[in-house]
């Protein structure tokens, strides 16, 4: 079954004149020729792997190291099929893979955009008895982006976001807390703070 939306120009014009909202055709399911790209990122943490995983490896720990709301809305936390709701419900992610010190998640099909098979995997790998490599890998189909420039920008944006998250995980595991969020450009300084020069 394909997705077909057939209408004549005359019919469309009449409908438009009458103010009838035209039904939006459903988004194409997936790209015809996917190109799966991966973004591997890592950081070294000066703590044993099991300790690091205990601090950052629960499914909704993302709420702490991404500084965003996160709720388990379905299933059992940390188990296959668990669902987390992020950013006021705007993002839904399902836990689809796990090992003792890793988990993998994906997002469901969403209305209005092609499905890009987006997956993320977080893993804590022991280096030695006292240090750990935290590895975050994203994989997704970026063939539906407009052009190579858009794909490059998208890759860079995701890398920036998740390398920031890794830095927060490192801080959380080593010090017990995440550093304060950087101030946004244009935000006035807090009351009492010296005015910018």
């Amino acid at each position, binding site marked *: 079954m394909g997705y077909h939306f057939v209408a004549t120009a005359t019919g469309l014009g009449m409908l438009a004149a009458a103010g009838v909202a035209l039904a939006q055709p459903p988004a194409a399911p997936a790209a015809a020729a996917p190109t799966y790209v991966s973004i591997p990122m890592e950081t070294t943490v000066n703590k044993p792997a099991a300790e690091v995983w205990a601090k950052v490896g629960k499914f909704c720990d993302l709420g702490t190291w991404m500084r965003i709301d996160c709720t388990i809305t379905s299933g059992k936390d940390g188990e296959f099929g668990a669902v987390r709701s992020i950013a006021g419900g705007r993002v839904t992610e399902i836990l689809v893979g796990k090992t003792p010190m890793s988990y993998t998640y994906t997002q*469901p099909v969403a209305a209005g955009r092609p499905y890009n*098979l987006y997956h993320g995997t977080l893993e804590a*790998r022991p280096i030695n008895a006292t240090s750990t490599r935290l590895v975050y890998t994203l994989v997704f189909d970026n063939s539906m982006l407009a052009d190579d420039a858009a794909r490059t920008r998208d890759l860079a944006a995701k890398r920036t976001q998740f390398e920031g998250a890794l830095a927060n995980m490192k801080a959380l595991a080593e010090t017990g807390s995440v550093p304060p969020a950087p101030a946004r450009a244009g935000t006035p300084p807090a009351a009492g703070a010296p005015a910018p020069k």
Partner: protein
Amino acid sequence: MSNSLKAALTAGLLLAPLSALAQPPAAAPAPATPANPLISASPTYATIPMEITVNKPAKEVWARVGKFCDIAEWLQIAAGCTITSGKDGEVGAVRTVGSEVLVAKTDLSYAYTQPVNGAARAGRPYNLYHGNLEVKPLTATTSKIVYTLMYDNSMLADDAARARDLETRRTSFMRGMNNMKILAEGGTLPPPPAPPARAGTPPAAAPAPGR
């Protein structure tokens, strides 16, 4: 009221009925945006965990059964398996079996999923099917193969259909796991099960007497 205003109002009153007649009849209320048939309205994620113990160290087992296309050997897929995209064993690799995409890996595990196009062609919701294969060390000489399937089964007809589906998958993959054990321990696989006979197909001819 000024004469020009009266004239304008009169013109408007005269024009209104004419323009109303020129318009098409009031349209029916706009239809709701058609739902994306790929979206599962109320997903229920089912999990099928399976495991088997192997009398070999984990790394040896993984080396024998853990390559992405090894599935063709231990599931005895007659058509075989080839990597059609990406680098074998790396995230993003695609194998011919189920057009499956490798989406995650650790040293002794990988996870894969199937793309959405199959569901789109069939006109059914995407079930987010994922498989996870992992080898866990137990002792220096033994390990455990763990295979976990996870998917949304909410679109199946009823609980009976869901139970049959679970059982079918479990039977198929437990056979695969038994084969992985055999291969890892150095044995030879039994012949694959015969495919179910199609309705109307005559039975195979009996051997001639004396053979």
